[in-house]
């Protein structure tokens, strides 16, 4: 190998000029001929054959035998890792397994059959049950109000005027916007939601005047006037009528008719003029209002 290296250095001396490899005259003359190189290579002594490690495929065919202790440890590790994976899979699928178990397990025949041996007694019991069910149905039907009542759907912003379970009228409304108004200056907050549940009409007003609460000023970026101040009262914004639900919540009209059908209010139920007139006419003080 040394001979070859020396030869290469001598015969392939390279001059670098202007960033290019340039072969000098000397190197051109002394350039190694392929036949000479082969001769040198043949003279190079071949290294003695050493024991080489087995190739991958050979290793698979003939695995080296592990010491017994190490094999047992390795088996435990491999088994428990796979076992843990299977256990997690079993845990994940446990509800499905249980369903299958319930499906394949044997079950007793129709257990109701076993109650009594006497068919007449069974028939009597069935009649008693029928009467009881009919009684319960009557009792449940009696819950539905006989007088007209109102259902407010806050999800789709619709109203349904009902009477004895039958719909008299369906209309569009606006309900709470779910806006949480925060005033950093006053350290107060208001949530504009229409409350759900059963309410009753507590009062009916014609040409109502709106007594503006604090949030109405804060939302407009205005200073809050003192209670009872004339600035707090505004006529003509609630429509022709207002029906009180309690806790300051009203069913009233609106100036913003294009907003009907959208959740934009501060908690009240806003109706269009026609719907408001119909609701006002049909609902009396004490009439029920169901909001969901």
């Amino acid at each position: 190998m040394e001979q070859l290296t020396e030869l290469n250095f001598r015969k392939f001396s390279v001059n670098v000029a202007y960033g290019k490899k340039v072969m000098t005259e000397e190197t051109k003359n002394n350039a190694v001929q392929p036949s000479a190189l082969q001769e040198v290579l043949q003279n190079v002594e071949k290294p003695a054959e050493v024991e080489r490690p087995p190739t991958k495929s050979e290793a698979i065919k003939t695995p080296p035998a592990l010491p017994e202790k190490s094999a047992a440890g390795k088996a435990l590790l491999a088994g428990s890792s796979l076992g843990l994976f299977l256990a997690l899979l079993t845990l994940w699928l446990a509800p499905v397994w249980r369903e299958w178990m319930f499906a394949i397990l044997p079950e007793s025949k129709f257990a109701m059959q076993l109650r009594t041996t006497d068919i007449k007694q069974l028939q009597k019991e069935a009649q008693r049950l029928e009467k009881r069910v009919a009684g319960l149905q009557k009792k449940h039907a009696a819950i539905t109000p006989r007088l007209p009542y109102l259902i407010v759907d806050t999800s789709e912003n619709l109203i349904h005027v009902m009477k004895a379970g039958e719909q008299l009228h369906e209309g569009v409304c606006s309900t709470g916007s779910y806006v949480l108004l925060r005033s950093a200056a006053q350290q107060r907050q208001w949530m504009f939601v229409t409350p759900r549940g059963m309410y009753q009409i507590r009062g009916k007003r014609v040409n109502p005047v709106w007594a503006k609460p604090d949030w109405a000023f804060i939302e407009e970026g205005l200073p809050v006037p003192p209670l009872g101040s004339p600035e707090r009262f505004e006529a003509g914004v609630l429509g022709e009528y207002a029906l009180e639900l309690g806790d300051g919540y009203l069913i009233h009209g609106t100036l913003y008719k294009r907003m009907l059908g959208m959740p934009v209010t501060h908690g009240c139920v806003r109706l269009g003029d026609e719907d408001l007139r119909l609701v006002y006419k049909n609902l009396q003080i004490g009439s029920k209002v169901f909001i969901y």
Partner: protein
Amino acid sequence: MTRQNLGVALLNRLVKPFRFLRQNRKAKIIFFLSLISFPLFIFIVTVVLPVAQNPFEAAAEDETFENFEALSDSTPAEIATGRLELAKKMAALEIDQAFLQTRLELSKKDSIGLVVDLIDGTANLEVKGVPVRRCKILRYRSSGLARRLRRQGRLHQWLAMPFILQEQLATLPKAPIRIKEAPKDTIEANESKGEDLPIEQRDAHFTLQFDRNLTLAVEQAQPPSFSGRLRELWYDLRRNFNEAREAVTALIYLQLPQHYLWIEIELSREDAKAIYRALPTRAGLALRL
């Protein structure tokens, strides 16, 4: 490389770490024991024992039941058939009675309740016993356990009281709250007035977990949007994770995991959304199936 060769190569690669087991019998035994023991333990604890101690059947045990096999030997076939028909009729009536009683019980509460009638195919919202929204169930699936209980005439005992909501999981928020900072002055207030209202188009899939081991899953009938599909995937993962977590928690406290009788109903998106938004955190449910 052909597909077959690729398969063989892959198999070789998978089997390779276990080749040392070939020559060692002791290692082989250790491997199989460690492989089987943990999954077997989990299977017994989470599957076999909960089925063996079935809470539904245990609650419905009735001492007045006699041995049918002994009876049928001594009774003519026609009488037995007549009795079977009568018994089925009675079972249906008992379920009706339990359902109505539950609805009456629900009507005593102030909160909004859910009434699911799988026989009529309706899911209604009721306030104080008055139906406020009637939703049509488009499709439903239920646990095999329900059919098993029905065949045994024991379903009515389980349905006789309102189910109370314990946990809920959904693809949509319970309330679409938007936070708005109060404007500093009228100029800022006027600027914010022009903002458009966000239109909510969330898909509605939710699971309600009630007491007495009942799970009600509600799916919307409309196919979900792309983002809705992702949200649904996340929701499914959370649901499965919750089930597994519950089982693990039970095991930690040396208890058996609970098996839930599940019902899955399909409603329109609007109905599903309205029901989910309307139900309070401890809502009651009346069920007929």
